[in-house]
Structure formats: C-alpha cells, structure tokens
C-alpha cells in the first residue's frame, strides 16, 4: 500500500513522496524506512514523519533499545575487567566502557565504580556488526553531564517513545514539574530513567509523573503536574500531622 507523510504505515508499505522526488536532492531515510532499488519501504509500524529539509522516518512504539551512535544512555555496570567496564544498556549486546574515558582519568587514577553502579554515558561506536562502546567524556575531555549517577536516586524503565517525547524540546513536562519540585533526572535513550529528589515520596511522585505522561496528550500534562503537586502536599501534611 502506498503511504505519504502523516499516514499510519505498516511494514511493507511503499512511501509515495520519496519516489517522485528528483534525483538531485539528497534524501535521508531515518529509522523505520529502508531502500530497495528505487522504492522505499517501511519496516516498522507507526506514523510516517518528515523533518526539514528532507529527513523521513517512522515514529513507532518500541521497548527494546537498538544502539545508535551519539545517543546518551543510562547503563548498569555488570563487570570490571583489566581495562574496561562491561555495561548493560538494554540492547542485544553489552557495551564496553574504558577506564580512561572519564574526566581526569589516568592509568594510575582509576574511576571509583563498582559493579551495580549506574553510569550516564554517550555511545561512541554503535553499529549492528560491532560491540557498542561508551564514553563518559565529550570530545574536549570534559565530563559535562556524563559520569556516575549516585545511588541515592531511583531507576525505572519505560518505552523509547516516551523518552523521545519527554526529551523533546517542546515538551512541557520537566518545566512544569520543576516549578514546584526540586529534582535531578537523567533520561537515557535506552528507555532507562534515573530520578533523584529530596525525599522518597517526591522521587516516587516524579517517577509516576513521567510514566503517566506516556498516555497523556500535551494539554493533559499541565493537569498531570498539578495533580502530582496536590497529592504530594497531602501526603506531606499527613506525615507532619
């Protein structure tokens, strides 16, 4: 079946718009689309979208992460060997993180990471044929926001589409929550989110807000945040009494 931008596509559908464009323009096919000779087929089910100037992709629902270069992920350290950490990022293969990929790390000055710790890292190498590689520094050698996440927070998983939704620049969720709560959040593109707030209840409240945002439309997010605020105030006043 032929589909165009904005339609719901199923695997096997051909994309009409792309085939008619002249060969001079370069068209970038994002996730969900593949090319076979002169036709472009969709291989995932979802909504076909386009970003300017000529990037087409399929917005689909998925829970399992497939590594992509340059994405930030939250990983769990599973093994420590002589010069690398093995990190579980929720993909089909475990990623490797070198000891030296931290700010100020030298052969003598190793980072203090134990098995079971959480790291917020960037994928340096990620292809379907190779083991993924992580780094906790950017190209200038600065840590910025990457590195170990403290064990005081809470980790939970959610779908990849939710992560993309909340990390979108246009999403009001974090801004609205930040008006009344103080919290730290690290959202990895692999569906894992680490949250830390002042008290246990607040942390659970923030986590619930993020998970509830999956099914909430943009207009509903404001209401969601105010509901969370009210519930927190109630529990806090209940505790005080």
């Amino acid at each position: 079946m032929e589909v165009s931008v904005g339609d719901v596509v199923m695997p096997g559908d051909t994309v009409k718009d792309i085939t008619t464009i002249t060969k001079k323009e370069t068209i970038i096919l994002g996730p969900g689309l593949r090319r076979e000779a002169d036709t472009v087929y969709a291989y995932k089910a979802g909504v076909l979208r386009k970003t300017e100037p000529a990037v087409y992709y399929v917005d689909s629902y998925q829970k399992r992460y497939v590594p992509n270069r340059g994405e930030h992920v939250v990983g769990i350290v599973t093994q420590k060997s002589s010069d690398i950490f093995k990190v579980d990022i929720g993909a089909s293969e475990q990623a490797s993180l070198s000891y030296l990929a931290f700010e100020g790390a030298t052969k003598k000055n190793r980072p203090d990471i134990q098995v079971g710790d959480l790291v917020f890292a960037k994928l340096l190498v990620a292809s379907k044929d190779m083991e993924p590689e992580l780094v906790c520094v950017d190209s200038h050698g600065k840590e910025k926001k990457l590195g170990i996440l403290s064990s005081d927070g809470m980790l939970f998983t959610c779908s990849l589409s939710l992560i993309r939704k909340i990390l979108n620049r246009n999403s009001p969720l974090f801004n609205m929550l930040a008006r009344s709560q103080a919290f730290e959040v690290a959202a990895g593109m692999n569906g894992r989110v680490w949250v830390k707030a002042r008290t246990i209840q607040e942390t659970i409240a923030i986590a619930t807000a993020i998970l509830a945002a999956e099914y909430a439309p943009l207009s509903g997010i404001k209401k969601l945040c105010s509901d969370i605020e009210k519930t927190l105030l109630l529990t806090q006043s209940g505790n005080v009494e």
Partner: protein
Amino acid sequence: MDTSEETSQSEYILRPMNCELNQLSMPDGSAMLMQGNTAVIAGIYGPVEAKPQKMIYDKASIEVSYSPIKGPTKVDDRMTEMYIKETCEAAIIVTFHPASAICINVQELEDSGGMLGCTINAACLALINAGIPMKFTFAAVNCMIQEDNEDIILDPDSIQLQEAKAEFTFAFDSMDKNVICCYTTGCFTETEFLKAMDRCKQASQYVFDFYRNLVKKYANVI
C-alpha cells in the same frame, strides 16, 4: 487470469476478532488475540543476546516456543513452532540484527478451532508491537471443506471442524498476497485446494485491515 465472468458472489463469515497489544509488562512486544473462542497470547523478546550455539554471525536467529494449555509439549506443538518460525523468518529482516536472537513465545489459552491461524496472526501482531523490522506483515486464514456438501467454510470453529473432510491454513504476505505458509490435513482435490486458497487469499485482506486499524488507533497518541 481474467475474472470477467465471475459476477456471482458468495457470503462468508469470519469469526469476531478481538485483540489487545502490549498487555504483558515484561516482553518487548505482546499480543493477546481471540478469534471467536480461540484465544492465544504471544510475547516477543528481541533483539537479545543469542546463545553461542545458536548464534548466526550475519543474521538474527529466530527461536519460537509454543506452549499448549494441557499437558507437556508434544510433537504436534513442535510442528506448530516450525510453521510459526518459517513464516516469521520470511517476514523478519534478519540481516538488521546480526548475531542476536529474536524469541517468539506463544501460549495457547483456548483451542476452539483454527489454532494455527490464530497463533500466526498473534505472532505477527506481537512482532508489530515489538518494533522488529519486517519486510511485510502476514495474515493467516483457516478454512475447511465440509464432508457432505463439499462447501468451503471460512474460519471454522471446533464444532464445524468435526464434519470436515479437509482443513487448510494459509498465511499470506501483505504486499503481493503470496502464500508464505500452507498447512493442510485431510483429502481434497487440486481444484478444491486452489479454490480454498483463493478464498483465503481474499479473506486475508480483512485481517490486514484489522491490523492497520489497530495501529491507526494508538499510533498517533503513544
């Protein structure tokens, strides 16, 4: 083949189909499908790490497990697994995830006729929910030939199947409606086989429309 002389149409009924996607929290994709009273639940993990013995260096290995509701797994269940595996291998783009495994698990909840067709459809829905790359979607349709009057009945239930002379299950792909899986029991002539296949081919369009409507429902929101 031209069909200009076929103006007469005959009415057939497919059993009501009910489906829910993403019902289970643990698998990457899941679907519970009911066709009439036949109910099946499918759960998929993938792509995940493959076991070293089963790892293929340039493709994803597909592992299927079918659990019946009564008793331990028997040889017939392994045969069902084989049919599901071959149908899925035709549809999944295995080169996108080399050296990994895609685990398809199907649990029978109730068998009221047309089990193989229902499991194949549930597997397809679960694959769509899991976001596994596929060349096309596939749909299976069952039909049977009645003993006495040689009528073809589409999507029979267990009561109708008791008077069957032969039973067929065909799975078709969504692009060209080619047959990707074919299972038959009983005796039938070549004409009957081709007739049944043609009926099922036409009926499969309804199953594809069902899939599409389901995806349309949630795609814009989630």
